[in-house]
């Protein structure tokens, strides 16, 4: 089962829950992969501390112009829907940072003066920590476009009983790229007005994808009951509520949260897993 853990905004405990779920399942003998698709803020391995076996660079194709062949006709400028090419005094200038790598300019150039070269946008690490295989992407600082990198991370699906995906926060292209092809989505939220607002946005977004969906309320008890009421009204299942505790917050701050979290919330993690089995009808094969 591929479980994507997402949230309307960051800071709800999405990464911690991904780590805890992966750890919980691995402790029960399942083969588990943990994928960090939050490539703008890849934090999984800060906690997991996997041994990295391989690092692969990810690049996207970017056009370059051969000045000798180019006649300055301007067709490339015209086809580019993203204004990434401007022909200035007969010479095309390419703005790499806004190019979407669609390849259009290369296709229309009548002189075949454009070819594509790779531009690195980030890398993918692969490794393992105990029984958990880890795959994580990291976007280069200053790079604007993350979906191609997220797509590349997703291609590394390992053969596992469970794959847990730490998706980027928000409701736009990066999270859509990360949850594509999963079996179920877990939305993590906080019981506060901000949390509720962000949850509503996330639910609206995810509904377009038609994947089974459940909510986990983190830091339960710190705010109000708006999130619970909303989920009841919308018929969204609340998989578990994880009680707020300053102790966990301090452990989190120190970076030692995962083991503690799994111990503390053993029952709740079990509820999440069985809730997901119910929602998806998928059950990992029994481990011998």
């Amino acid at each position, binding site marked *: 089962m591929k479980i994507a853990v997402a949230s309307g905004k960051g800071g709800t405990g999405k990464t911690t829950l991904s780590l805890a779920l992966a750890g919980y399942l691995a402790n029960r003998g399942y083969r588990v992969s943990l994928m960090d698709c939050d490539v703008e803020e890849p934090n999984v391995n800060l906690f997991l501390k996997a041994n990295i076996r391989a690092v692969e660079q990810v690049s996207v194709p970017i056009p370059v112009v051969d000045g000798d062949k180019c006649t300055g006709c301007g067709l490339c400028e015209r086809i580019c829907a*993203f204004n990434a090419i401007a022909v200035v005094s007969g010479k095309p200038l390419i703005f790499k940072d806004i190019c979407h790598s669609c390849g259009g300019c290369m296709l229309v150039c009548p002189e075949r003066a454009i070819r594509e070269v790779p531009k690195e946008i980030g890398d993918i690490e692969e490794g393992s920590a105990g029984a958990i295989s880890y795959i994580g992407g990291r976007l280069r600082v200053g790079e604007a476009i993350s979906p191609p990198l997220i797509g590349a991370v997703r291609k590394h699906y390992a053969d596992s009983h469970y794959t847990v995906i730490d998706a980027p*926060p928000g409701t736009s292209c990066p999270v859509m790229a990360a949850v594509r092809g999963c079996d179920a989505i877990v939305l993590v939220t906080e019981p506060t007005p901000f949390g509720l607002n962000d949850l509503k946005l996330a639910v609206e977004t995810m509904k377009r994808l038609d994947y089974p969906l459940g909510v986990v309320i983190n830091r339960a008890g710190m705010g109000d009951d708006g999130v619970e009421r909303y989920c009841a009204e919308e018929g969204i299942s609340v998989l578990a509520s994880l009680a707020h505790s300053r102790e966990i917050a301090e452990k989190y701050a120190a970076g030692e949260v995962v083991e503690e979290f799994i111990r503390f919330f053993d029952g709740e993690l079990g509820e999440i897993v069985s809730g997901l089995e119910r929602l998806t009808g998928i059950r990992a094969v029994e481990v011998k």
Partner: protein
Amino acid sequence: MKELVIISGKGGTGKTSLTASLAALAGNKVVVDCDVDAADLHILMNPAIQKKENFVAGKVAVNNSEMCLQCGDCVLYCRFDAIGDYYVVNPVSCEGCGLCERFCPHEAMEMVSRTSGEWYLSDTRFGPLLHARLFPAEGNSGKLVTLLRQEGRRLAEEKGLDLLLVDGSPGVGCPVIASLAGARAVLVVTEPTVSAVHDMKRVVDLAGHFRMKTLMCINRCDLNRENVKAIEEFCESRSIPVLGKIPYDGDFTKSQVAGKTLIEYSDGEAARAVRKMWEDLSRTVLH
């Protein structure tokens, strides 16, 4: 005009609560919510919408099934895997490059404008607020952020207001780059947790990229002493002033539940620390 952008890298560090508190303290300003993916500022500012506009950005391909002979050429051209069964375009994946329209031999693909969201100009008890809503699964948040800041600047000029207070976007990608470019100063809100510190360093690098005056605020500073020390050392090595240290305080959540800013709601330790930070800000970079 001075423009202060508040960012955090990682979400959940209290950036929006702090921006709202600064909005309550500052006079003569326009507030801009550039966290367009998950805009929350309006919850504390209770805006009365004065003007509402569509945010149209880019295009999306639509297949006209009457013209389509199912030759499949478009699929070969589309690099975004956006053309599905029966050559129907999936708008979530379509980036609007237009190659399918350009190369379809039967003129069956058409590019149409894409309304990706709405933006608003509102009145609040703290003055004008520019905010927006990006529709679910829409992209182009960078462009929306740029538009909001431009409108904010125009409004400030029109009304003779001299400060733009911007709740920036999270992350280090496209929208946050759009939040920062050209601003006067950036206030980074972090907290002493391992991941917040990690993300904070990434946004500091980004701000460095734009040669911006960078300031630091450590929220929930009593959560972990060692990490606070690490942040302070990092700031010193980069000559970044630590302007505020704000303790963990349940009043943040309580004020949110009450729909108020911390400053209005509480006179506790955290509120006092925020006031002091505002005084320092106005004496220094915003002077």
